[in-house]
Each structure stands twice: as C-alpha cells, then as structure tokens.
C-alpha cells in the first residue's frame, strides 16, 4: 500500500497490528506509527485514510481510544481506535489486513479541558461515543461514568477485550434493558448530578460524547453543571483550512476540527 513519506509532526504512516472485529459493526484498529508522534489529549482525533483508492476520497476522523506507550516491540507506541463500521470508509478500514501500512494525520483539534481540583467530573458516553471519552477514565481514576447503549453486546465486547472500567462508579442503561437500567442513560446522570449537588454542593463538570440528539436532550435537562461535548460533522481537511466543518456557536461559526471537536454545550446553537 502506498503511504506518505513526510514526517513533519502530524503526518505519518502507521502499520496495522490488530484489526479485531467485535460483535455487530464495531471493530478495534490498533496501529503503530513509524515515527514518534505528538502527545495526544483525550478528545483529540486523527484522520485515517480508508484504503488507497480515490473512492472514497476523503480521510475519516476518529477519536483516539487509547495510546499504548512505546515498548521494545513498538518503539513509537500504538494507537487504538474503536470504530463503528457505518458506511463505505469504515467498512474498508474494517477489512484492512494486519501489516497494512497506511497514512494518518493527527492528533488534531482540541480535547477536553482539564478538570480543576474543586470540581467533580461526570463522563457520559452514548454508544460509539465511548471512543472519545474512554481515555478520561485513566486520567480521572474512578470518575463516575455513564454509558448508554442500544443493547448489552457492546459492553460485554469491551470487557472481553480488556476494558475494565465497570466498577461501582459505572452507571449503564440500554434501550432494550438488556444491561443496566432500561431507557436513557441521561436519567441516571440527572439523578446522580442532583444527588451530588444536594449531598456535596461542589461544582460539576460533565464531559460527553454521543449522538447530537443526546446533547440536545442534555440542553433541555438544564443540569447544574459545566458541560463539554464532542461534536461530529463531515470533514475534508481536518486542519481548519477547508472551512467545511462549521458549526454555529454563540460567538459565530466555529470549525469542529480546529476549535473543537470539544465545545462547551452552552455555546452551541442547534439548527434544524
């Protein structure tokens, strides 16, 4: 496979070392870069090229699930992505063989801001949104984690491959009730936030990633918290030049790839 030969900072080639298909559409793509790459904040993303064809043409954005530190075997560490094969590009990525070398741009954008000492962090993931916020669980150990899924499959999948953040601080809900409580994970969140407010009174930060509908529902809930969410829009360049990924905010149009993808929820103006 053809790949790029320029290693100025955020443009590098990487080799696939694992492409593990989970139940359903999800898969884990683990790659090792061929150069030392920049440090990544949780919430930042990388643009992956879906195969070497010119159709599909554009790179696809994916959050970094986790970074594994350099080892003897992988001197530049490894990047792990959790991907939902929803369309053309993701399905091509799903079929790439171990050993395939391909091109990556990143890390890009702004991740989640640091949490102050006097604040408590609640993390919310809706479905595949877990890919973007999962990294927070190793920065903020034992932080309350709210995970909403359609059905139990995905949870067990993640556990099966070694993600074990399912302690007593994890609150799960599923659409079909097959795991956790039945219904929206936001109800659990609301309850915990108000209990916390009542019992401790401290400042609450919520970092969330999920479908935009989830964010709109959060707006309506009027939670007494500082909420940051990771947005998704189609992207071309990923680096702020094409001006394609615009989103309306209270301070005008902003670019999801450069000013985000993480935004303060109250700044977003929701259209249609």
């Amino acid at each position, binding site marked *: 496979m053809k790949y*790029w*030969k*320029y290693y*100025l*900072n*955020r*443009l590098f080639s990487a080799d696939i070392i694992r492409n593990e298909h989970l139940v359903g559409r999800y898969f884990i793509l683990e790659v090792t870069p061929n150069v030392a790459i920049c440090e990544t904040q949780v919430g930042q993303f990388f643009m992956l*090229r879906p195969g070497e064809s*010119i*159709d*599909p*043409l*554009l*790179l696809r954005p994916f959050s970094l699930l986790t970074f594994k530190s350099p080892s003897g075997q992988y001197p530049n560490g490894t990047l792990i992505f959790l991907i939902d094969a929803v369309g053309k590009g993701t399905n091509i990525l799903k079929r790439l063989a171990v050993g395939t070398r391909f*091109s990556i*741009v990143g890390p890009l954008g702004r991740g989640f801001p640091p949490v102050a000492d006097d604040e408590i962090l609640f993390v919310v993931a809706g479905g595949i949104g877990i890919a973007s916020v999962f990294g927070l669980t190793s920065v903020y150990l034992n932080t309350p984690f709210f995970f909403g899924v359609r059905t139990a499959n995905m949870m067990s999948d993640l556990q099966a491959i070694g993600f074990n953040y399912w302690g007593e601080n994890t609150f799960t809900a599923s659409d079909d009730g097959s795991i956790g409580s039945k219904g929206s994970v936001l109800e659990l969140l609301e309850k915990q936030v108000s209990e916390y407010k009542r019992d401790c009174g401290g400042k609450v930060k919520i970092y969330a990633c999920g479908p935009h509908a989830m964010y709109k529902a959060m707006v309506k809930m009027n939670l007494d918290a500082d909420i940051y969410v990771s947005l998704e*829009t*189609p*992207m*071309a*360049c*990923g*680096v*702020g*030049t*094409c*001006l*394609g*990924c*615009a*989103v*309306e905010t209270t301070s*005008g*149009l902003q670019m999801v790839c450069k000013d985000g993808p993480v935004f303060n929820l109250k700044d977003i103006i929701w*259209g249609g």
Partner: protein
Amino acid sequence: MNLSVNIGGLKLKNPVITASGTFGYGVEYEEFLDLNQIGAITVKGLSQHPAKGNPPGRIWETPCGMLNAIGLQNIGIAAFIKEKLPELRKYDTKIIANFFGDTIEEYAEAAARLSAAEGIHALEMNISCPNKQAGWIAFGTDPALTEKVVAAARKTATLPLIVKLSPNVTSIADMAKAAVNGGADALSVINTITGMAIDIETRRPRLSNIVGGLSGPAIRPIALQMIFQTFKAVKVPIIGMGGIMTGGDAIEFIIAGASAVAVGTANFVNPAASIEILKGIKDYMARHQIDDINTLTGGIIC
C-alpha cells in the same frame, strides 16, 4: 532541469501551486510540509470585508470527488494583510491573493488594496464561485460582463492579474477570450462545477446552500478538456487545475496546455500532496529527458 515558469509576469521556481480555498492562508500547513518547496501558494478567496459564508452543511463527499458550499467565508483583506501576510513573508515561495467582490467597484478596490500589500506576488480574480447568487454568477458566465469586471480590476491592479474561469459555461473559449480582452495576464482553469446531493432519508439537500461546487478526481477529464480548449483560444499562460492527485495528472494538464498546475482537493487527502506531485513531475521529466518544463506545455500530439 528547468522547472521555473512565468505566469503572466509571476515567476515561479516550479509549476506547482496550491489552489485557493484548499490550503487556508498557507501557514496552517507549515507543520505538514516544507512550504519553501512549493511554487506558489494561493490563499483563500478574500473580500473587502470579512465574510461569514454559508451555514453548516458545507461539504459532502461524492464519487471520487466532493461538493463544497463554503460561501467564500474569509477574514477580509485587512486582517489578511495584517495577520497572515507577515507570516507568509518568511517563506521563499510566491503568494497569490485570490479575491472577489460583489460589484465591479469592489473588485477594483480589492485589486488595488492587495496590489499595495508587501509580500503578495500576483492576484487571482475569482469570478467563478458556484455558491453565489444568480446575479453574481453572471461575472463568470456572461462574456461581456466578464470583460468589464476584469478591465476594472486590471486598471487598479499593479500585480500580474490571473482570472479564474468557471467551467459552468457553454464555451470556455469565449470566456477565456473575454477575460484576456479585459486584460488578464493569465487564466486559472477551472473552478468547481455546480453540483448537488440529497439525503434520501430526510429528502433534504446535503448542503445548506442546496447547490455547491464539485472538485476532485471526478472532474479531471472535464477540467483537462477545458484547458485544452482554452489553450487553443488564447495566448496567455494557463494554471490548470481540477482533480490533480499525482505528478502524472499534472503532466497530463501541462501537455493539454497548462503552464503551471494548482493542487486543490488533493491537499485534503494528503497534506503533502503538492510536494509529491512536484516530485512526480521531476521523475517524469527525468524519464523522458525533458530539460525544460516549458517545452511540454501544450505538447499534445493530435
């Protein structure tokens, strides 16, 4: 091996230019490639006042291409000169300022202001954006109006004036002649082709502007043909663009009549595309023992 070209008075060390709107204001790419290696950088289209552009729903991928309806969002000429140009002056490359106006007067004023700024080497006049209203589109589709608006900018411009033509016309040759009659020193061919896409689940257009401009490899055969027609119609140099992804594609455009090429959508697929394309051009020249790239322009054997 001589790679330098002269585009209507604009001297470039090599014929690879980055296309307007696909390379930001240039500086964004300094961490992806060595900007000193590029022949010239064309910056995002500038207007007298900052422009907000279209609402979200601005891009959409299509077979071997993409649609965009950015709506010419830009920081305005003043901010560009103050904030971006000083950064760009650090690099040993040429800067082409792409610009547009909403009236003939605005075009003339923009040309004057940009000509006066230090560090700009040529002007590229955009009369061909498919995302504007019908009235504006006439600048790029009605030859009489084209000649008039170009002549107005020509009068105030003191730098080489490149006019960027629209492909959405019956005869690109007629448009090229009109621009040259108006005083264009060179032509950029082509801007994006009007297109659209619909989400069949919601029945809504994918772009807030409904229609947008198609770019990328899908349009390459169309662009190539227009360059070939333009080359036959006029004597001024042509910057060829439209779907160039590789050095081989660039050579195809040069053989059809281009004196230089611009790389657009390819920058999104690979931020270092322009440098790889330059390398491909050199490889081809070496393989075919071509000493001077200028000898290849219009070298098609029919």
